[in-house]
């Protein structure tokens, strides 16, 4: 445990004293814990031919939570001291005036780990990182004078968390996370377009950059920008859409993922809340949310309540099987936590969140899908998406797409927004490809002002009807 933080080492409160404050505060609550966090992160940015920014952040703090029935009391501070803990405890008690619950001590255990205990920031020197960024800049700018702007950055983080529950039970995790991003802007005949690509996950930088792998990241960003330089206005209206494998699975994340999170379903504000056990997708569509894939960006050994993560089947062969749950929503819905309780950091309360959300492979090929489309679009890459979980409407923005005419891929089209209806879109899926692929490891999901790292995966799919938000009528 070389990197485990000792949160009480330089504090005036001992672990024993903290444990007794926790037990005293939570004794008649239904659940709750003290969450301690120590994170170190760095960001090194090359932009406009220069190292624009090298910054380092160290963050330390605790969040103290007490739950009674449906009510959550939360208090956080970045001062781990006796005074501060006691003040938080008083604050929680004053919110939950008359508690008469029974603390649920039960929490599942597992010895499995899905990433190594490393500090990626220290595994590569600043000078090495700067050299790679400069090499990236030189490499991209050597690709012709159409390249007008290059931005590249490293983001690295190590987060140590500790969860102390009533009675002193302690769970801990050390989570590495890195990301390497490249953005290139090209100009041709006065027209400017950008291409963006990146890689990352819970391993050392070296795992993603070895053998000059950074060149393939650059090539991909360059390819997307070049394609977009030739793009023409996107069509407007309902049509067939073929999605490529991998990152386009943010469709799954937006269209159904958020709607299957426990909180929205307990509150009955999700368009899916009354559809459990029912057919919500075409036959052949199976969607899981998996926190247990080694070294993936969305993977977690334990969630932020200490529950080991798992592979949760959400939709099996078209039928809705499970929601994603944290402890609070699981208890109120009389089910179990799926290890989906997450928070951005100690400043935030736990919410049920996605990890790596994946649609599994089917039998068809991408060629069959393209051939089946008379008029439609083929979307290969996306910028981001958003959903209104209540109405079920979701959007996502294409960053690389082509028109399909009479079964053949045609010209590239400009970035357009695609809009659909979550509960019905998966019934429009008429082919599922045999080419499932993970995304490159760059996704961040936002909910209630909290961003957490997530992953997505899917094979190519054909959607029979979706609205494409272009400008060409």
């Amino acid at each position, binding site marked *: 445990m070389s990197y485990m933080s000792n949160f009480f080492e330089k504090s005036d409160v001992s672990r024993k004293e903290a444990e007794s404050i926790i037990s005293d505060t939570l004794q008649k609550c239904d659940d709750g814990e003290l969450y301690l966090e120590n994170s170190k992160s760095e960001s090194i940015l090359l932009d406009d031919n220069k190292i624009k920014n090298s910054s380092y952040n160290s963050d330390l703090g605790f969040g103290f939570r007490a739950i009674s029935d449906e009510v959550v009391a939360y208090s956080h501070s970045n001062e781990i001291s006796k005074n501060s803990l006691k003040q938080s405890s008083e*604050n929680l008690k004053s919110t939950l005036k008359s508690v008469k619950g029974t603390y649920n001590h039960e929490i599942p255990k597992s010895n499995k780990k899905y990433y190594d205990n490393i500090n990626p920031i220290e595994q590569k020197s600043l000078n090495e990182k700067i050299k790679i960024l400069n090499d990236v800049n030189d490499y991209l700018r050597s690709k012709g004078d159409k390249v007008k702007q290059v931005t590249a950055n490293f983001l690295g983080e190590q987060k140590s968390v500790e969860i102390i529950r009533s009675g002193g039970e302690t769970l801990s995790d050390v989570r590495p996370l890195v990301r390497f991003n490249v953005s290139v802007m090209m100009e041709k005949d006065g027209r400017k377009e950008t291409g963006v690509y990146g890689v990352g996950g819970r391993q050392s930088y070296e795992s993603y950059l070895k053998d000059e792998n950074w060149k393939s990241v650059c090539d991909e960003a360059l390819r997307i920008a070049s394609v977009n330089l030739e793009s023409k206005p996107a069509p407007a209206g309902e049509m067939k859409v073929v999605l490529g494998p991998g990152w386009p699975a943010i469709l799954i994340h937006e269209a159904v993922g958020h709607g299957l999170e426990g909180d929205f379903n307990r509150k009955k*504000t999700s368009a899916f809340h009354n559809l459990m056990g029912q057919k919500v997708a075409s036959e052949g569509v199976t969607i899981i949310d998996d926190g247990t894939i080694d070294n993936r960006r969305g993977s977690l050994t334990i969630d932020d309540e200490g529950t080991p993560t798992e592979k949760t089947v959400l939709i099996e062969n078209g039928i809705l099987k499970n929601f994603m749950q944290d402890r609070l929503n699981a208890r109120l819905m009389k089910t179990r936590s799926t290890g989906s309780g997450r928070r951005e950091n100690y400043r935030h309360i736990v919410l049920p969140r996605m990890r790596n959300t994946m649609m599994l492979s089917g039998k068809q090929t991408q060629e069959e899908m393209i051939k089946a489309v008379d008029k439609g679009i083929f979307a290969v890459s996306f910028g981001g998406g958003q959903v209104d979980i209540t109405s079920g409407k979701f*959007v996502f923005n294409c960053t690389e797409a082509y028109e399909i005419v009479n079964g053949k891929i045609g010209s590239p089209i400009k970035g357009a927004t695609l809009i659909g209806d979550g509960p019905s879109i998966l019934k429009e899926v008429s082919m599922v490809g045999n080419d499932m692929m993970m995304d490159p490891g760059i996704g961040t999901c936002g909910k209630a002002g909290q961003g957490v790292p997530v992953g997505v995966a899917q094979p190519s799919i054909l959607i029979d009807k979706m609205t494409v938000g272009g400008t060409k009528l």
Partner: protein
Amino acid sequence: MVKDQEFLKKKASYCLDLAKKLGATDSSVVVKNSVSETVNFRNKKLDEANRSDDLGISIITYVGKKKSSISSSNLLSDNLNILIEKCVETTKNTPEDEFNSLPDKDLLAREVKDLDLYDDSHIANDQKIDYLKKLEAAASNDKKIVNTESSFTQNKSNFVLANSKGFCDGYKTSSFTASSVTVAKDEKSMERDYEYSSKCFLKDLDDADELGNLAANQTIRKLSPKKIGSEKIAIIFDKRIAKGILSTFASAISSSAISRGTSFLKDKVNQKIFSDKINVFDKPDMLKGLGSRNFDSEGVKTDTLKLVDHGILKHYLIDTYNGKKLNLKSNGRCGGTSNLYFENGNICFKDLLKLNSKSLYIIETIGHGSNIVTGDYSVGATGFLVENGEFKYPINEITIAGNFKDMFQNITLANDLEFKYATNAPTMLIEGMVVAGK
């Protein structure tokens, strides 16, 4: 209690002194404390109470033309010593950039005016609960409302910005925010909407009943929406969406986008980019303004700027680094705009609705569909069909698209500007956009 100026200044000067001792030729530091208390209600019952106390520090050190930064929430001296040492060390190993520097001394703010940004009154959680009870009672009056979630937050902040050129100042700010999110349901649909009020002073906050009623009514009117066909149509943006278009304009004239060449408004100063009647102001010294400030995040004084004068772009938003690169002086916009707004148009809301026999009134957009490199705009939208000035029926699952270059030239503004956010716009009509639907 939020930490006082004396405490923050002591921490700041400790950091500046240490950075100098360790070899920094210049440095700047921000120390900020923010204490907030939130109470959340759901379906007329207490749902969550949250107290947060955040103390943070961020330091930039320079060694000649080299620069690096650190930030931390751990202000114990031991930790600060390690971090500042690391920062100076990193700075020395970072390549030079000729434009790196603190702001010129003559641009630093000299006087700090009292802009009425701090209200000393404290609203206890029990009083917040009283407000929320009233709000939720109003919000859930109608049987179609099936879920209400409301929130009340009091925030008190204090900060100090100091640099090695002798600047050292800061001030307290406060905010009181109430919001309500409601869900309405009928046989055909379920919809969500919200209302919100945020003020520097507690006594200025909207009435609880009014807020609850507005949230509920705005949600109920969205029920049973239809999808319309794809066509070219006049679009009217509700104020809460129109302000987003102004924010996109602000990012496109930020000196960083301009100096990097990644904005569709590069080289457009003194050119006509909006229709004739459009004027845009950024006014930092509004009393009680939600975006008011005495100086920008580098300590540079901020004056009111008329960014757009009768359609003509007059200024970029300039910080020190990008200013030096563009050979322009900082106009105190490091960290963005302050109170940014479109001046009122000269037509009332009702008449704006009647300008076209058929138009689409947009109350919500989703997606990140604004591209400031190309000016392309494409987002998912929710709204109403308006015919001959009358609201006909709700519409959703459509997208609206255009290019800002054209959109800006086709803006007509109503005369209903209010200062509800830091960035504000009157109701806005844009002709010639494309709706994609069925």
